[in-house]
């Protein structure tokens, strides 16, 4: 079994860090995990991608093949990555930054809006996102993610990261409860 | 659009996408403007300019400009420049290097170009860091500064690049910060004008890495620092070594006349006689 997540956005949105935290959470859960990210010129303001693959056996190919879960933090990221989705895969987008997501199962979540509202800056949207996806991703739990955050984020920002995560977690739980998964067809918005 | 910007635009490559790659507020962009204006002011044609760089953030500069441009290897830009200048002395050869480029891996070529007095203008973007590779300490990183390769604080004293090239024999050496933009432009102008090996050391801020290391969190703060720590050569003459510690002395530091390599070589050729028929 292999579960593939891709986090996509632009440089400065904390995509890489979110990927590492997610991967660390996977490790804490005892899974096999691989995490890759794109390096390079685009990292400066350009597009940024981080992939996390979780598995119960060793992971052979370390790049994603068909995404179980895509998190898209802007429109371009959404447009360019949908083609790699698994047919029944789930897409979570930042509703403030993504207008259209032509996909079957889409959750539209105001990630950066919530971050902005709470911390007066949008850059904690990455952690809000991690919270949101927990209820939809069977491979990590809020416990492992919190622990991973403690391990992997700078002490100075840990508190804010945790509370952003909590916000996301609440959003995600609400959504999870409100929708019958099988029925999602088109976008669900909070 | 006013003349200044019009002028700048006339030198930017229309085929390149802007904004350029540098981080928001990075001083290299300011230098690029000053360089363009100085070139324009000296009335060089675009065709006669060869703009060469090494590898680093600063190394990306030539890509944007509508000259003959060459992006070489890390540290070796001056060697390519030497070949170009000697093979075709009618070209005006300008080299842009980072501090790592010029003073770490390329230090030897720097002092030898200075010694030979090859007719090249070298612009050294001294941002006190390896910008491109993620903020490791360079030979100009101040003692004690934390960088990604010296997280406990840098243990190595810094070069005074200008002093080293002076000792090596450069004909012209000047220093400015990017904050002192007009001075910078002027000094580059003088350097271009100079016969022989001319060096302009440009104190430049790397917002991303040095900003982080020095807890100066914006280009503005870093440029304030440049403003507050610069001392003109004239004024520096009146200060004690102690008072000058940590200061940036700006202006023309060396200006001397000496025969350039290609002039001497041309004399040699005249002397031994061009005898192309013989071949």
């Amino acid at each position, binding site marked *: 079994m292999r579960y593939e997540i891709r986090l996509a956005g632009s440089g400065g949105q904390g995509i890489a860090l979110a990927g*590492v935290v997610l*991967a*660390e959470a*996977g*490790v804490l859960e*005892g*899974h*096999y*995990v*691989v*995490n*890759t*990210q*794109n*390096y*390079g*010129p685009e990292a400066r303001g350009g597009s940024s991608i981080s992939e996390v693959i979780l598995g119960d056996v060793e*992971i*052979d*190919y*370390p*790049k994603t*093949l068909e995404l179980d879960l895509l998190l898209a933090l802007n429109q371009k990221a959404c447009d360019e990555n949908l083609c790699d989705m698994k047919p029944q895969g789930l897409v979570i987008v930042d509703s403030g930054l993504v207008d259209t997501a032509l996909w079957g199962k889409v959750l539209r979540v105001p990630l950066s809006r919530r971050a902005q509202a709470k911390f007066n800056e949008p850059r904690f949207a990455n952690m809000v996102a991690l919270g949101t996806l927990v209820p939809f991703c069977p491979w990590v739990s809020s416990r492992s993610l919190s622990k991973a955050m403690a391990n992997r984020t700078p002490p100075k920002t840990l508190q804010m990261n945790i509370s952003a995560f909590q916000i996301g977690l609440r959003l995600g739980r609400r959504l999870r409860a409100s929708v019958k998964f099988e029925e999602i067809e088109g976008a669900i918005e909070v | 659009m006013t003349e200044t910007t019009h002028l700048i635009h006339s030198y930017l490559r229309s085929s390149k996408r802007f904004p350029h790659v540098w981080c928001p507020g990075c001083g290299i962009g300011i230098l690029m403007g000053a360089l363009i204006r100085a070139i324009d002011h000296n009335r060089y044609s675009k065709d006669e300019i060869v703009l060469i760089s090494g*590898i680093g953030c600063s190394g990306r500069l030539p890509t944007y400009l509508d000259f003959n441009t060459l*992006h070489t*290897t*890390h*540290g070796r830009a001056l060697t390519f420049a030497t070949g170009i200048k000697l093979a075709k002395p009618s070209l005006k050869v300008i080299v842009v290097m980072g501090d790592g480029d010029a003073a*770490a*891996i390329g*230090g030897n070529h720097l002092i030898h170009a200075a010694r030979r007095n090859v007719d090249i203008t070298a612009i050294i973007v001294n941002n006190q860091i*390896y910008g*491109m*590779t*993620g903020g*490791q*300490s360079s*030979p100009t990183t101040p003692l004690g500064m934390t960088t*990604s*390769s*010296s*997280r*406990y604080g840098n243990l190595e004293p810094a070069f005074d690049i200008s002093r080293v090239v002076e000792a090596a024999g450069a004909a012209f050496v000047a220093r400015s910060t990017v904050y002192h933009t007009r001075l910078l432009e002027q000094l580059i102008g003088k350097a271009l004008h100079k016969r022989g090996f001319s060096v302009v050391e440009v104190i430049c801020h790397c917002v991303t890495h040095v900003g982080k290391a020095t807890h100066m969190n914006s280009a503005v703060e870093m440029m304030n620092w440049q403003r507050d720590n610069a001392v003109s050569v004239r004024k520096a003459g009146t200060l004690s070594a102690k008072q000058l510690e940590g200061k940036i002395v700006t202006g023309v530091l060396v200006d001397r006349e000496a025969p350039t390599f290609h002039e001497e070589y041309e004399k040699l050729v005249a002397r031994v006689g061009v005898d192309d028929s013989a071949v």
Partner: protein
Amino acid sequence: MKKNKRNERLLLQGSEACARGALQAGCRFYAGYPITPATEIMEAMAWELPRVGGVFIQMEDEIASLGAVIGASLAGVKSMTATSGPGFSLMQEHISFASMAEVPCVIVDVMRGGPSTGLPTLAAQGDVMQARWGAHGDHPVIVLAPSSVYEFFDLTIKAFNLSERYRIPVILVADEMIAHMRESVILPRAEESELEERPRPTVPPEWYAPYKDPGTGVPPMPAFGEGYRYHVTGLAHDIRGYPTIRRDEVGELMARLFNKISKDLHLLQWFDSCYAEDAVVTVIAYGSVARPALRAVKRGREKGLKVGLVKLKVLWPFMRRTVMGFLATSTKVLVPEMNMGQLSREVKRVNQGQCEVLTLNKVDGSMITPGEILAKLEDIYP
């Protein structure tokens, strides 16, 4: 550096794993120069070494880095450096020196797209032949290639062991993918890793002949300052280390340099294989390409194709025995590489026409995918 706890699963970047492996192997000296994508190894060593009393220094370039590494090793300290293509090219002269003077050291080359500055942030396998042949003059080197974060840890330790055992520069070629990716690993504790040390002289200084074959091909090596005042040179030398051009002495030296490795070739056949025993078509791969290859082979089996994989961990000396063994049972061999065909040439060389050797090459900075390999396998399947 934290201790490795028993069975603790960690998320480590390849570069970190390499640094940990080096420290666990006893490396206490690192000299380097930043270069993408090898910088993280340097940065990790810069952080860890002072904490264990080791020395880290960032040198003025890659030539200086390897020079310092060789110096430190002569002073008795296990030493390493890491770089990528452009820097690796600059190190060649000193690699040649280290093999001539028989100074143990470990050099990591994290391969990125080339030639020249190329594609600094993207993976490639373009330096595989360079790792063997990049330095001037005939000399042996050992080259290892990890294909996972764990292997990067493990092969780094083994690299130190081999370099100490044979007094030879050992090169690790990792591709950018392996160096940059993070992966779950369980590391052995320090006491679980077997370490080797260079042979030391047992005779008193007066009797010591620094380059005399003690039978094993590897002369014992004291550290500078231990009382054995001997001479080290990159010139051809006699058993005392003094320059010579006498044919007999030079011939003996060269023969020993090669024999010390070739006599142990059987010990250097390190590989993993999967479904390879009865494969009709065998895939031979190394580095990160071994991973899509593994997946492709598994899928191929699912589809009923008798395909198998041999993953090489030692690239040089080329694992002739291993490869020939597997070739004997296949009719076709596929060598996928992120280059224009480098190790595949060696497969062809040892193959001697036994089976058809096919290649699958990619040099555009992207990974070879399982799909591509599988498609090729299906295509060539007899």
